[in-house]
């Protein structure tokens, strides 16, 4: 089968095989379950790294195609729906990110109880959706995988979550599905205008090449798709699923959700909304720019007064993801590259946050910062991890957040329009507010005096928790220290999009 010679398909096959493997394990055999899960996650990680290597080699060999490793297999002939695969730099790094987080997530849910098997089943179904989304370049399959990734959230939160989980799970699912309702309409609209000669297609590259969507339609389709993805990207005012959802979700799910799933939103926004509807993006993009700008500041301010660790992080995610969408709407290489860097950074950093919060919560059984304090004494490993995550979040050099935010700010400020620059300045202010809420938590949670004497007996991280967090910390530091490696991979991928928006190719100085 020719399809199996494409490495990309394995990103779907491997999780599915893992699903199969998990299905074969018995409910009681926790060791077997873990083994299968770790094997699956490691295989994905290896694949992702291999993919990046292949990508670099191809690019190094002068392959300047928009997407590499492309392949297309007819699926639904009547609608010309294909299983079309391909990656560019952006999807490549997103796949890498997902692999990292899945890997860390498996270890973070090592002691998952009850029903570990079912948990991992859903978990890997979610991963299937995520990977499938990133490897697809066909609207239909993309959308399909997108929804595949959404629905396991309901059960993952509902069954394994905590707190007001029923409400949160339902709210999250319904709001995200609401977003995908917009999206589906947008996709159908795009499909029926994908070509001037009636040969409709779902392939993104072909649609972009045909560039046949009339501007009057773009004006409708752009908001539809942008909001559709924006809901998942926690864009103001569609973000309210995020705090409740994250607060109730179990550790690994929060990780995967904030770490990867929310990135689907940002990714979709530029890959579909902006790339395919450039004219509308330019004429009405400012509305969304305003909304995302509000997201950034609003999320940060809201995070300042929360007392639940997960709520703080959820609002912080609103702010950071707002920055992703904000940068995407700036339509130049730098800002968009920054957006992807920010996705990477936020993904890893938030996953780290949620992992640590989960671990702390697992020990103290509270997430209320008012009931905790001085944990640095008691669990130094987790404490240090938390501080690193916090510093990454507030954009400290050497950690991923800084590189991402700087790229965004400098890129956005290059915009020739004063309105955009003023908004950029406003968005930049968030770095201070971020510092405020991060330090507030760190000071309250880790430093200071121990609030609850029972906490003194708690233990520090176990090996699997260390492994899980160390993976993420390593990644955060790697991006923070060598951002150019990543931004070089990413940047060229924006050539077609920027060109569609009427911009120039990025020609490196060298």
């Amino acid at each position, binding site marked *: 089968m020719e399809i199996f010679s494409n490495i990309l398909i394995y990103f779907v096959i491997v999780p599915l095989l893992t699903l199969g493997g998990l299905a074969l394990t018995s409910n009681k055999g926790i060791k077997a379950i873990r083994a299968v899960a770790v094997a699956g996650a490691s295989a994905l990680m290896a694949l992702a790294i291999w993919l990046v290597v292949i990508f670099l080699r191809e690019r190094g060999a002068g392959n300047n195609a928009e997407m590499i490793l492309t392949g297309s297999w007819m699926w639904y002939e009547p609608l010309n729906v294909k299983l079309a695969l391909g990656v560019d730099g952006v999807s490549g790094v997103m796949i890498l990110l997902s692999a990292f987080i899945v890997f860390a997530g498996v270890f973070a849910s090592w002691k998952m109880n009850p029903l570990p098997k079912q948990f991992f089943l859903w978990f890997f179904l979610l991963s299937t959706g995520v990977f499938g989304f990133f490897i697809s370049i066909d609207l239909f399959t993309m959308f399909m995988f997108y929804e595949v990734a959404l629905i396991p959230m309901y059960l993952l939160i509902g069954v394994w979550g905590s707190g007001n989980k029923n409400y949160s799970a339902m709210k999250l699912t319904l709001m995200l599905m609401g977003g995908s309702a917009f999206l589906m309409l947008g996709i159908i609209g795009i499909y029926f205008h994908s070509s001037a000669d009636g040969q409709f297609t779902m392939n993104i590259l072909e649609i972009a090449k045909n560039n046949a969507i009339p501007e009057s339609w773009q004006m409708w389709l752009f908001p539809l798709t942008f909001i559709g993805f924006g809901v998942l990207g926690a864009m103001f005012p569609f973000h309210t699923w995020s705090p409740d959802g994250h607060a109730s979700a179990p550790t690994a799910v929060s990780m995967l959700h904030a770490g990867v799933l929310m990135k689907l939103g940002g990714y979709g926004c530029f890959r579909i909304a902006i790339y395919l509807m450039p004219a509308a993006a330019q004429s009405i993009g400012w509305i969304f720019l305003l909304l995302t700008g509000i997201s950034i500041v609003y999320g940060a*301010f809201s995070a300042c007064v929360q007392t639940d660790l997960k709520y703080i992080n959820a609002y912080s995610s609103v702010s950071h993801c707002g920055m992703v969408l904000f940068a995407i709407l700036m339509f130049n290489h730098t800002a968009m590259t920054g957006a992807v860097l920010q996705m990477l950074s936020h993904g890893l950093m938030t996953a780290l946050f949620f992992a640590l919060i989960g671990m702390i919560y697992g020990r103290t059984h509270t997430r209320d910062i008012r009931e905790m304090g001085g944990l640095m004494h008691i669990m130094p490993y987790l404490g240090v991890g938390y501080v690193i995550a916090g510093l990454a979040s507030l954009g400290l050099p050497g950690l991923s957040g800084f590189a991402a935010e700087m790229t965004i700010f400098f890129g956005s400020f290059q915009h020739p329009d004063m309105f955009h620059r003023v908004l950029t300045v406003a968005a930049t202010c968030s770095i201070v507010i971020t510092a405020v809420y991060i330090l507030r938590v760190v000071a309250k949670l880790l430093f200071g005096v121990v609030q609850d004497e029972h906490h003194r007996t708690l233990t520090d991280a176990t090996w699997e928790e260390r492994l899980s967090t160390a993976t993420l910390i390593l990644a955060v530091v790697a991006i923070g220290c060598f951002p150019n490696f990543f931004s070089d991979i990413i940047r060229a991928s924006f050539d077609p999009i920027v060109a569609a928006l009427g911009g120039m190719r990025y020609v490196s100085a060298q």
Partner: protein
Amino acid sequence: MITNTVLVLVLPFVMFLFLGLAGVKMPRKTAGVIGVVGMLITTVLAYWVAIDYFMHHPGHEQISAEVDWLNFTPKLVARMGVLIDPISAMMLVVISTVSLMVHLYSLGYMCDHHGHAEKGFQRYYSFLALFTFSMLGLVVATNIFQMFIFFEMVGLSSYLLIGFYYSLPAANHANKKAFIVTRLADLFFLLGIMILTFSTGTFDFKELVGLGDMAASQRAAGTMDGLTFLGIPAVGWALVFIFIGGAGKSAMYPLHIWLPDAMEGPTPVSALIHAATMVVAGVFLIARMFPLYVLAPMAMNVVAVVGAFTAFYAAAVACVQSDIKRALAFSTISQIAFMMTSLAVSADGGQLVGGHEAGLGYMASMFHLFTHAMFKALLFLCAGAIIHAVHSNENDKMHGLHKFMPITSIAFLIGCLAIAGIPPFAGFFSKDEILVACYERGLGWGLWMSMVAGMTAFYMFRIYYLIFFWKKHEVHTEHEPSDQPWTMTLPLIILASISCVAGFLPFGKFVTYNGEVLETHMNWTVAGSSVGIALVGIALATWLYFKENPKPERMKNAMSGLWEAAYRRFYMDELYQFITHKIIFQGICKPIAWFDRIFIDGFFNKLADLTGNASFAIRRVQGGNAQSYVFVYLLGALLLAAVTGVVILMI
């Protein structure tokens, strides 16, 4: 030489990683010793670099090497590199010296009375190494972006070190405050860079300020011609913002509030970070950008006014502080303001002032930076020794320590004399040149700064007397205070000696704005008057504080309002408290969070409720009666026909 410089950077970083990761596994003292040795090697390398540079590279050429770190646009590339030019070489020396002293000193200081190292000793040395790395990285930055990066890094290390005793609420509070205030300043720094690079399209100092090539800065400023925002030229915005960034780190009014609180950190840390090195980062930044500032008179004036005011303000506050470290902190603020002012007064209206001595202020500022680092570090280390001996920061717990701690006392006195500007100590030379530069700009500037110099002498000697004399020391603790172990006294002696002789360095030969040798001439009028003012200040202090007497109390009562205001730092902290808590927290954050829950979240919940209510409301249609079903059926069919018919046929 570049290799050496890189080594100077790498070594502390390695120490940081090594001590941070592996330190937990080794005995505490071992970690300390490793740290000191590492720092010693760094210092030697740094001196080597500096000497090599000053000796073998006359004409002040720059030596730099860099790698791309992050490409923003094809032109705008953030690079990492090292740049050796006069001021960075000078800073290398300052930082490594003070850092070495502090490393050594801490071996003794960070121990309890039995000589056992405190918990977290490894962490402490690891953080010190991180700070040293960041500070060194800052000064050798080849571009403004790298500088910004290290600005953040020093902020971080400062944060970590202030909060070293993290379980103390005060330390916990102070480090947060320090970080957030400097972060706020950094925001402006960042905005400044953004504005600056928007048109110039480069981060490099070489292209922005030329590093000796004045034409480069004119070119850079030229690209921004015609760009204005709210009527103010972009270059002005950029430079004012960058100054705010520097002001945050250098604790200029009104961003100074974090520095006194930062004294919650271990005293050696205060000596290193909050007296000698990090706080002058702002000055260093302005000095780096000096050629551009010259071209933007508006920004320069802002710097000058803020500097002059801060100098006075901090001196005034320092006069009444009872906490020794706080007093020293305000003194630091005041002295840094001197440097700022000195930089700022050396140009007016886009031109350098001072004729053949143009750029004197710049040189003086750097000179003062150098000398101040030495004597202020000395003073802080002395303070540390005292605090270590009496376990308190408060004056009234000390008094009359001269007998018990003679070495410390003398070292402290040297420090005081140096800062007061009494010849032949280091401070005299640098401060004198600053005053000269001020007088060259204008008489008002000169008089104002001279007055502050007098106040400096007064408050330093006030502290000195209150600590070491005033009245006999009452022993509160089980053991008498005494001079400390050699690890602590040795640095004092070294720094004291430097403070004595540093003034004779021919600074003008090495460090000037354009790289050319600046021959300075002693301006005897100014020198004489400044020494005179200093002496007046000392005399006043002696009169009031040498022996226990009721005069200070009476004065305090006579001007209780003023005294109280000064003691409370003119209510700046309260103002900040009000702004952050009442306005930002209560006035913005809370309402936004409330709005989010009630309106945004409420909207979606309401939507769900509405659907539920609708569902409940229409349930009567399904009332169970088949006849009503039929009725609805028929009505539906009839309406379908009627409405369609009316719409299509009638309209």
